[in-house]
């Protein structure tokens, strides 16, 4: 799954650690999501979408 998490985080000027803190996950989890090594659960994906005030499909896209 591709995602826009890194671009959205950098646009806010947050570090991975700061984003991790707001999502109540580890920095490793944020890094793994951003690099595409780990697809978040649906509840975490919704938390990410809510935090960035975007619909979930604007952040996560299936690989073509």
């Amino acid at each position, binding site marked *: 799954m591709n995602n826009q998490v890194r671009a959205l985080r950098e646009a806010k000027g947050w570090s991975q650690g700061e984003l991790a803190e707001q999502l*109540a*996950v*580890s*920095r*490793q*989890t944020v*890094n*793994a999501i951003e690099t595409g*090594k*780990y697809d*978040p*659960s649906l509840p*975490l994906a919704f938390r990410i979408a809510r935090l960035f005030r975007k619909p979930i499909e604007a952040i996560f896209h299936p690989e073509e």
Partner: protein
Amino acid sequence: MLREYFCAGTTPRYWRLSALLMTLYLGSIALALVFGPGFTTPWARAAAALAPVPPVLGFVVLEFRRIRAADELRQRIELEAATTALALGIPVLLALGLLDGAGVLPVRMILASPVLIGVYLLAQLWAHWRYR
């Protein structure tokens, strides 16, 4: 990376309980070694020999709670490590058991726990490395 790996999901309470359980574990082994041979009844010898088991069960409960409190990626890592360790540990233990049965290599059953723990730790490092 290793600090992040070993400290993930831990709290000061976790480390205090770990230290307490490790003290109990080492103390029970020392007591079993010092006083165990002096016991004459089977029940007393069994109690001395099994004294390290409760602290180990305490470690299991402590780890279980730490994993339940961890975030979802850490839980995924633990799950992958556990299944990998099981898949690798069973053939290793089977091979050791067969060698022992054939009289080629005498293997003590007590080695099964350290072998499984060692394989699990290696599998954890591997799973952690995959998502680094």
